[in-house]
């Protein structure tokens, strides 16, 4: 029988040694992790599937939240625009006087005069109003001073200020509707709270499901972790490949979910540009692409983080 002996070899030159160390580290961490990933695809598949689904939901929910936020800003801007209707036949001097008073008011951002002709033209672009316009021989839409109020809370006082002005229509002095703004705010606040709650629940479910799936995959390889530790592998060497494997899983799930998020958004945009822009303002090609990248990055973080947490449970203390 052959005898076990000591192998004595010359030391490598420093540069060659550095290359070997770097090469071994890279090979061990990345190539080894990739090889293990393919070998363990069966145990990883559930984690990959659940991560993809949850990341897709998170991506769509995130974009929806972004659109709702934009919608709220649009609605708020519209709600803080007060139309002060000018009485038919009101003298120019009175209109100018009213304009000056409003423009000088520190609560007002700006004032724009909309003539009757402009009001008619604007009405024709709003669904339903062209029929009203055509039903009458004369232009039924009044001229107005469109007052952009800085704070929505000052709407009531500005409306009260102009109500008795001689230039203002005494029957229908302004567009101010006390309940409208509150209703809008209530609805948007409700949607925002529901959206945040949904995102929080989704994030919790995503993290929990992912960690459990990854943990199950690592648990099935606990012998491997044990053996590595018993033969003297340092902790980083035990953890590293699992973290890289997790990152690969997360990256693939993130890429699939990111592409799906991007694809769904682009499909929505191209299917109905005007409608989509009205109900989901601010969602553009760039925003969809950024959302896809964020979903990808979240997947990488979620996968590697889950692996790190899961493999720690199998490390000796």
């Amino acid at each position, binding site marked *: 029988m052959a005898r076990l002996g000591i192998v004595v070899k010359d030391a*490598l030159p420093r540069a060659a040694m550095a290359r070997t*160390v770097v090469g*071994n580290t890279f090979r*061990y961490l990345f190539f080894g992790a990739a090889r293990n990933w393919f070998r363990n695809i069966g145990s990883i598949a559930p984690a990959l599937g659940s991560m993809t689904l949850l990341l897709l939901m998170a991506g769509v929910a995130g974009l929806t939240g972004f659109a709702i936020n934009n919608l709220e800003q649009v609605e708020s801007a519209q709600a803080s625009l007060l139309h002060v209707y000018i009485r038919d036949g009101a003298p120019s001097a009175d209109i100018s006087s009213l304009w000056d008073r409003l423009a000088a008011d520190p609560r007002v951002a700006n004032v724009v005069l909309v003539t009757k002709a402009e009001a008619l033209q604007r009405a024709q672009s709003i669904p339903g109003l062209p029929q009203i316009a055509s039903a009458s021989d004369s232009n039924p839409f009044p001229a107005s001073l469109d007052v952009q109020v800085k704070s929505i809370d000052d709407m009531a006082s500005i409306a009260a200020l102009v109500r008795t002005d001689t230039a203002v229509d005494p029957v229908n002095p302004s567009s101010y509707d006390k309940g409208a703004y509150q209703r809008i705010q209530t609805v948007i606040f409700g949607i925002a709270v529901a959206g945040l709650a949904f995102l929080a629940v989704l994030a919790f479910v995503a993290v929990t499901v992912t960690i459990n799936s990854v943990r199950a995959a690592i648990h099935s390889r606990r012998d491997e972790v044990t053996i590595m*530790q018993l*033969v003297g*592998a340092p902790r980083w060497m035990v953890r590293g490949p699992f973290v890289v494997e997790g990152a690969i899983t997360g990256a693939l799930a993130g890429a699939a979910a990111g592409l799906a998020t991007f694809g769904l958004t682009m499909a929505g945009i191209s299917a109905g540009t005007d409608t989509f822009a009205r109900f989901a303002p601010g969602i553009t090609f760039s925003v969809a692409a950024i959302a896809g990248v964020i979903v990808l990055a979240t997947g990488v973080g979620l996968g590697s983080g889950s692996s790190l947490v899961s493999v720690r449970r199998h490390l000796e203390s």
Partner: protein
Amino acid sequence: MFPAVLRPIVEFKGVTRAYGSRLALDDISLSLEPGDLTFLVGPSGAGKTTFLKLINRELRPTKGEVWVDGVAAHSLKASRVADLRRRVGVVFQDYKLLPRLTAKENVAFGLQVGDLRISDAEAMDRALDALEAVGLGDRGSSFPNQLSGGQQQRVAVARAMITQPRVLIADEPTGNLDMETAWQIMALLENVATFGTTVLVATHNVEIVRRLQRRILTLVEGRLVRDQPAGGIGRMEWLASASS
């Protein structure tokens, strides 16, 4: 080159290990010298595996000190355990080979996890040398499930020895093997000891212990009841009862 001071490679000083209220080891003090081949015997539950796990720092003692090659294993931080493990080769009853690696890769793995300065080519060369030393030079490309139990155990011995550890601990290394293969494994372990590695073998195999006539540590209910020096053992009727 000779060591400046000849000190015990493994030293237990008043070591007690408890699992809850049950004492697995009770106030053990002993030392193992370089090149010793020592058997650790005793009935199931006597504390043999606990003893070995204390050397490898899989466990910490509840009380006392465990020194391995000058390293205080009893107080070693988790982050430093890998350093200790590279001084201690381990052979298990169930081999514990990585199933997705070939025999050669398993042996090389034992080498490279401890030293990233070793190139892949060199690791494979040395793994092949180690496999040839255990008589498996032609099975380097085989996966563990393509090898017999005895062959897998030889691979495990090669993996344990490739880092030239100061200590080799073997927990029932012949437990799953037939007698002929068990003798081959024991011959390998004897060979390892002749090169100065301290070898500690926990076993139930009375026949092997009796015939090799090496030092025998007998544990019963966690206590060291006998420390029989090597050679001139004479009649060992006590051994059969202690190992059953």
